[in-house]
């Protein structure tokens, strides 16, 4: 596609996404467990249980190991003087250009898991859209927020 943006997000993002994957896997495990018990006690064919388990195992591998890696490898961003460029997506690769003059404000947010790893998410708001750069080191995120805010102010314009 188009030339890739320079910067990657923190490698710790992998851990965070893995934890997210694990949490989701635990929830789906409980669902699968419930369904299996129901199938067992209502005398439905047992191969349904095997099928569900196999699907769950593939899902577990995919969401905990494969997907975070693919996501991280794709995630890139670059903040230039006049614009911000973001690339993300595993199956659908999306590249986004946001001119600095369109940036209205920038937020840093942090959930409990991100906090544990000293990571923050930067959210860039325009008048019509919100763009996220997930999992940057706290310090990096803070700097990025300041940089964008400064550049956006310089490039101020009507709407």
């Amino acid at each position, binding site marked *: *596609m*188009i*030339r890739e943006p320079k910067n990657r997000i923190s490698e710790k993002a992998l851990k965070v996404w893995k934890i997210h994957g694990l949490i989701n896997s635990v929830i789906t495990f409980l669902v699968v467990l419930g369904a299996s018990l129901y199938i067992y006690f209502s005398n439905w064919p047992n191969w349904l249980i095997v099928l569900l388990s196999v699907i769950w195992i593939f899902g577990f591998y995919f969401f905990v190991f494969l997907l975070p890696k693919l996501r991280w490898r794709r995630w890139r961003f670059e903040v*230039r*003087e*006049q*614009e911000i460029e973001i690339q993300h*997506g595993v*199956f*659908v*690769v*999306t*590249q*986004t*250009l*946001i*001119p*600095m003059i*369109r940036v209205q404000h920038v937020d840093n947010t942090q959930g409990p898991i991100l906090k544990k790893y000293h990571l923050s998410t930067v959210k860039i708001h*325009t*008048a*019509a*859209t919100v*763009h996220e750069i997930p999992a940057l080191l706290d310090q990096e995120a803070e700097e990025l927020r300041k940089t964008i805010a400064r550049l956006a102010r310089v490039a101020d*314009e*009507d*709407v």
Partner: protein
Amino acid sequence: MKMFEKKRQHPAAILTNTIANLRATIYPIILALIIGNSGEGDRIEELVLRIIIPIGLLFLNIVQGFISWWRFTYRLEDGELRIESGLLFKKKRFIPFERIQSISVSQGIIQRMFGLVKMSFETAGGLETEAELAAIPRREAKEIEDYVKRAKKNLLIEDASIVIELEHEGKPLSQKLEKPVECIYSMNFQEVFLVALTSGGAIGVIVGILAFLSEIGDIIPINLFYDEAKALLASGILILIVTVLVVILLAYVIAIIRSVLKFANFKVEWDEENIMISHGVLEKKKTTVPLKRIQGIVIDENLIRGLFGYATVYILNAGGSSVETGVDGRIMICPFIKKDRISTVITRCLPDYKIDVSYTPVPKRAKPLYILRSIFSFRIAVAILLCVYFLKPWGLLSLFLIPLGAILGYIKFTFAGWSLTGEQLALRDRFLTKRTTYMLKRRIQSLEVSQSYFQRLQKVSTISGTVMSGFAGLNGKAVHIDEEDARFLYRWFSLEKDEPVKEELTTE
């Protein structure tokens, strides 16, 4: 000037307030009347329910209407519209003129009776900062509108960036204060009628009738119909069917009449700085949109109108939340217009946009993607109907959805495309309605190029631009365009041309 004093609205506002309140209390009143009418309670109970409660509620409404009129004052002061209201909970709402994005003036039945108008002020700051004067003399509304516009202009002149813009246009400022109003679009009765006939609501009714007719076969077993037609008549099924059809037809006629009343007198005027849209018979509406706030143009051709070469034109307005603009900020400026006339209208009022441009179609290799994607989108319907097949044989009809999907995919493929003309990007995409979105580079909030796995195989991409519209954004897009074209558009939008242009774009 008396505009600066605290002022109450015209006393007719008591009436509009009362009616607005009545909407909340009408149900308890009706309930009380119905229960009172049942004749089960004794006389006193009946008296309370049928007379005291309804009259009491009505009286409270009027008192409330009076108090809110009495406590409501407005004035223009220090560059702000200042409204104070409320008896126990006092509310002050000060709106700086520069925050007022558009002013709309409308006239309901009550306002017409007294020769008054309703004035609404819209701001970009969300619903909270809206203001409304429910009943004021027309002349005063005009004065306020002029005053606010003038004041806004003075504010703007202090703003350096705007001065540059004005000088750039090379016109002296004094000339801008008094500008001629020009009518750029209006509809004759025939067109108003056609809009009503072909509107989405009307189409919905027609589909409803067809669906109903197709159900009749299930309701009446056909062979039974021949044998025992008389018995059926007696049983009233036929009467039921006729009644339902009449009701649907009536709904259609009412939808048409409502639509005619809404679009009658549709007129769009232009005065170099604003576009003013007015329409309606019983309730006249006028919306003023400053040209500066317009973020883009959308042209829609729905299935039926498109067949006859007609389209609907919208402008995208930043902020504002009047009834005119939907949630997505689209404002209709031409409900029904011959396609070849659009260009003349738009060139007159929004010369930055070029409507008649040639489009680069999507490459031929995108055709399978369109067709497969479109068939795929019917998967749920097909699955459900195939399940039905196990119960009833007509579930097999689902197989017809596959060629239908293919045809839809093909017509999507023939319509899609993009066009770049100077600063303007136009993107075409359709589902059932053909939609063309015109965006100026300086209005695009962000531009996105995306590519799925299958798109990568076919070397095509989806491009999508977002402009501000209403409180959120509106997305214009073109799907499966050549990836080189997408790259070219992406680069066009980029403000930093630091990278050397490696390959020249070749257009086939």
